[in-house]
């Protein structure tokens, strides 16, 4: 599906922030995605309208979160939200994995995520929670995404940290992206897309809906 058609569709125009409903805006996003280092990624501010983002956050706050801990991470998470019976979360998921939005993601990234295939969890990081360095590489994962529902300052921690790499191994943190409410970040899943979530400190709550678009 071409970008113009995707942007004019009911599902995209009712979800995506008006500022992105033009071909030029999407082309700018693509340009930025392609040039970003240490690997291609994008951080899209004001992804939805403020009201939509607040409605999504409110619905997510009603979901059940459980503790997740391993050698690699410590945080709280919901089950896959495909099972949510909250209308707005179900509609949000439909939007993200719609043909129309997938076409936009495909145009920006040059990749081929499949419509209808999406992992989607609510994740909550609180004081001392973290996710250590890894590459997300698992069969089928094509593009990783994070929709931020809270804002954290530098002192709160919780930044998404991207590593540069050499000979297939992460070397050092090259970029830090602090969470900003109603922002949508995404990157290609590659053997070298090494990243981590910085430890959260104090009373801050890092709330996201995140997961992966799937494809070849």
């Amino acid at each position, binding site marked *: 599906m071409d970008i113009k058609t995707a942007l004019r569709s009911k599902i995209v125009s009712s979800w995506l922030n008006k500022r992105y409903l033009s071909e030029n805006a999407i082309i700018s996003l693509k340009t930025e995605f392609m040039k970003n280092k240490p690997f291609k990624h994008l951080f899209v501010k004001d992804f939805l309208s403020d009201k939509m983002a607040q409605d999504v956050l409110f619905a997510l706050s009603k979901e059940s979160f459980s503790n997740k801990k*391993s050698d690699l991470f410590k945080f709280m998470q919901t089950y896959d939200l495909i099972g949510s019976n909250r209308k707005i979360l179900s509609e949000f998921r439909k939007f993200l994995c719609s043909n129309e939005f997938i076409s936009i993601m495909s145009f920006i990234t040059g990749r081929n995520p499949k419509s209808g295939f999406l992992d989607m969890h609510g994740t909550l990081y609180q004081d001392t929670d973290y996710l250590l*360095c890894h590459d997300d590489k698992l069969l089928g994962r094509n593009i990783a995404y994070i929709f931020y529902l809270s804002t954290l300052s530098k002192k709160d921690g919780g930044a998404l940290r991207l590593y540069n790499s050499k000979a297939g191994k992460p070397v050092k943190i090259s970029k830090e992206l602090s969470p900003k409410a109603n922002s949508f970040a995404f990157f290609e899943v590659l053997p070298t897309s090494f990243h981590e979530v910085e*430890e959260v400190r104090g009373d801050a709550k890092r709330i996201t809906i995140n997961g992966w678009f799937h494809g070849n």
Partner: protein
Amino acid sequence: MEINQTHINAASNARHIFYSNKDLPSITLKDFLDEKSYSALAKKIKSLKYKIESFPLTHKYAVSKDAVIMINGLKDYLSIVVGAKIKKITFSSYYLTQGDYSIISQDALEKPGIDLIFDITPDWNDDFGGNAVFVDGSGEYYNINSCKNSLTIVARKKGIYRFFDYVNNYAGSKKRFIIIANAVLS
């Protein structure tokens, strides 16, 4: 350096406790060394040369490998507790600070064996992290409740692995000193 006499006297009892946990034979022995020996060990550990290693996918900590640590009667004591003759013990000393950790890596899985964990840190709160944690293939976690001058003996079977959990910001500038030793059976 000397093992606390109360432990030597109770070695056979320690063996019963060790094997009472069938999933992960283990025992933690508090005040393992006598006071003078512990102070000497703590001093020695802090004087070792440490190399800071930072490999984000596997670990970040400081280590002094092949540390020479002489504890009188340790091999014999261990032989009684595990019920098998100990041929050799090799020691590595670690210190962990805020942000340090290790991750179980498929590329560097340790063989089954007898692990010894000496905790040489006064004033540490386990909530800071830096704990030696064991995990099996089903995701069952076994935390080691170590403390200053404790020795934990673990029979790490096939499919059980060890890692240091992440040291969080509450550790501040404190360092957690831990000696990990591997006992080789005859």
